[in-house]
């Protein structure tokens, strides 16, 4: 039986949305307050969903200790209490939450072996969230 297991994590980070491909005026028009040169921050919630057969012996899709370990090591430690614009990933990519969601999905999809990572959802504020499930 295939089921989906989801877990939520928290990280706090700053960012500034600014594209080198746009003029300063265009950046202000596109990103508004998020283009503030000094940056700003969010308490992000990262929701990770793993899918797979429920193991007959353990009753689990995957062991949450393994998922916690992987997410902490590869996502939380990398991004928590950092300036996202300084992360190597965001040297050429604007650290929108869309791009952050895709990056986290790809990191976990590649690294987590016990079950398939099927979706990552990142909540930037309680009213804004982004989901990525890979390309069809």
């Amino acid at each position, binding site marked *: 039986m295939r089921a989906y*297991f989801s*877990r939520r994590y928290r990280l706090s980070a700053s960012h500034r949305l600014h594209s080198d491909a746009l003029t300063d005026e265009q950046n202000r028009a596109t990103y508004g307050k998020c283009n503030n040169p000094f940056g700003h921050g969010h308490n992000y919630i990262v929701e990770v969903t793993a899918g797979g057969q*429920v193991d007959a*012996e*353990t*009753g689990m*899709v995957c062991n949450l200790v393994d998922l916690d370990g992987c997410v902490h090591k590869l996502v939380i430690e990398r991004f928590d209490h950092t300036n996202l614009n300084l992360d190597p990933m965001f040297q050429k990519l604007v650290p929108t939450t869309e791009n952050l969601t895709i990056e986290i999905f790809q990191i976990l999809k590649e690294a987590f072996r016990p079950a398939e990572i099927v979706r990552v959802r990142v909540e930037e504020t309680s009213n804004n969230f982004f989901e990525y499930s890979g390309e069809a």
Partner: protein
Amino acid sequence: MVLLTRKAEFSAAHYYWNDNWTAEENARVFGKCSNRNGHGHNYTLEVTVEGVPDPVTGFVVDLKELKDVLEREVVSVYDHRHLNKEVAEFASTIPTTENMAIAIWRRLDGKIPGAKLHRVRLYEMPDLFADYYGEA
């Protein structure tokens, strides 16, 4: 087609234990959850049904009937119970969140008048939940 979700809550005790394993194996895989004295959670159940709104009532499903089915089939059986010791389906199946989502699906499937079960989501705590969509 419209999806409609109703929540219900219950509180229950459980522990994780596989009789085929030694105490050390159980402790290694299940950690604190393997304590045979049990522990408990406040569960939140979200049941999503799908259907076409009735042209006369505008309802996909009568919410009162759905509430009654959830109460009769799940809440009255699980609430304030020890799942391993008092609920038949967990006498030989470990009551992980995944297995509970599947068991709840089986309890509800075909019992909701006029609508088809789409998803069972069970929160063990706000940061941990399992989804089950039935077998394709």
